[in-house]
């Protein structure tokens, strides 16, 4: 296995007032350029894990490392710098877009966080939309003017636009028809080949997971159980 890009050890998260932790001693690693599937029953803690890795939720225990840096202890500027290298496609694309800002704004926001100069924004936004098969005119649309699949593609485009080292995709293709899904999966595969992005991929679709992941980590009640490798063509 290649060197680890993300290393999560003994992650614990307990929601206030909850009886038991939703994430309970979870450990996983994702190597550079690797695609790891995270599967499990609904409610087992996958989305929570994703948020914990990005430090969007504060964990109650465990260690987080990203590319050798102690992500778990990073603060301020350092944390922001690390986050910039991780892309996130959240589970509910509709609510992951600011209802008062346009789709283009959403993508431009991430680009600006990466220091893309203002004058290049329009072009980069259009390019990102193009990648997910949407015309550039969609940049002006607000989230409620888009179909479910279009919103999901905006979310993917947003994460892709900044060329992250790791992408955490929470059900990224669930709302896409098979053809667009194929387009997106192909795109991710191409990117991975070209730039070596690592993927942590949450999905319920066995076909997608089996087709797409190097490794599948089954999750149950907040922890990983018996990791298996898929026999994906490789």
């Amino acid at each position, binding site marked *: 296995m290649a060197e680890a890009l993300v290393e999560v050890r003994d992650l614990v998260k307990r929601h206030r007032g909850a009886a038991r932790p939703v994430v309970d001693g979870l450990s996983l690693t994702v190597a550079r350029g690797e695609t790891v599937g995270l599967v499990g029953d609904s409610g087992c803690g996958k989305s929570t894990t994703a948020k914990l890795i990005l430090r969007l939720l504060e964990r109650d225990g465990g260690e987080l490392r990203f590319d050798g840096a102690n992500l778990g202890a990073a603060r301020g500027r350092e944390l922001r710098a690390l986050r910039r290298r991780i892309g996130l496609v959240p589970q509910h694309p509709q609510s992951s877009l600011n209802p008062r800002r346009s789709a283009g704004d959403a993508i431009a926001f991430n680009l600006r966080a990466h220091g893309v100069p203002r004058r290049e924004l329009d072009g980069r936004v259009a390019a990102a939309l193009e990648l997910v098969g949407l015309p550039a005119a969609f940049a002006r649309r607000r989230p409620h003017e888009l179909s479910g699949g279009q919103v999901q593609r905006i979310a993917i485009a947003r994460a892709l636009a900044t060329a992250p080292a790791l992408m955490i995709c929470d059900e990224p293709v669930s709302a896409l028809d*098979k053809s667009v*899904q194929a387009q997106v999966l*192909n795109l991710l595969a191409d990117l991975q080949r070209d730039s070596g992005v690592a993927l942590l991929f949450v999905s319920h679709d066995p076909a997608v997971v089996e087709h797409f992941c190097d490794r599948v980590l089954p999750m149950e009640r907040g922890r990983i159980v018996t990791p298996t490798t898929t026999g994906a063509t490789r």
Partner: protein
Amino acid sequence: MSLEVRGLTVAFAGGVEAVRGVDLTLPAGGTLVLLGESGSGKSATARALVGLPGRGERVGGSVTLGGRSLLGLRGRELRALRGAEIGLVGQDPSGALDPLRRVGPQLEELLRRHRVVGGGAGGHDASGHGASGHGASGHGASHGWRARARSRAAVRARVVELLEHVGLPQPARVAGSFPHQLSGGMRQRVAIALAVCCEPRLLIADEPTTALDARVQTRVLELFGRLRDELGSALLLVTHDVVAARAVGGEVAVMYAGRIVERGPAARLLTAPAHPYTRALLAAQPSRAIPRGRLPAIPGSPPPADRPLPPGCPFAPRCAAAVGVCRVERPELEPLDDEVAAACLLAEREVVAHG
């Protein structure tokens, strides 16, 4: 109750034509699966059927349910119909829930509103195992606090049961939770529970299982099946999941660029589609057999919704089989035989040729 849709159009401000004349027939107890490209107008169709156009949305055509025209309905009549006769599972489950109220009371309110349990005339109860007992407790003179308390308890029990039916583990805990405390899949199941709780005669489900694992998905589809079988409810299911489409069976309609391009029984259409678009869609199914990065996607993109369709077949620019006439003449949905209809000039020829 049977649903008849004729020439349905949905347009948005800015000249967006999301639905461009759709005809659908869905008999009582029937199932119709709506498949189609992202952005082709499936959700817009679904919402229009419930009489819920978004703001700035214009709906044309005719929709009748059990012989009654839906599009002209207003106020009280429409509200009596919604929820009780027509259930809708929206595409975005987070948008279905009041963020400040616990899940249980949201369901309770609906049950009371449509008098399924806990209020006067109880409805049928066909969806549950052993559900027969609950309806009764709501009947009769529910005077006095004791009766009210009993009816209240009955409603709550029913809520928990409903949540169990949609495959939620620990349903009592979910009922006591706020929406933001639930995972995506849990929320989606709650949204389904909200739509089916009043045992509607027409259930419209817009991609209801996207966040559910196969096991739960099966369970939900079974639930829909029970509604259909026991109450004769009709089901309109929007999905991308060919497996699910196959599982529910019935009719399948394929939408492209705001129009139905192919229609037929699931068994036939999903194995031997006539329309090149349907064919391409099915081919794009990922599987272990296809090397990563090589999924056969349909090249190009659908015609923009905010401009009038160019002449010819809307799919022609992306169609491998397209011939010259495809770019000139727009195909209408024509029956190919007594089961299947397709909007493809080539498909007609093919059938003719085959026939």
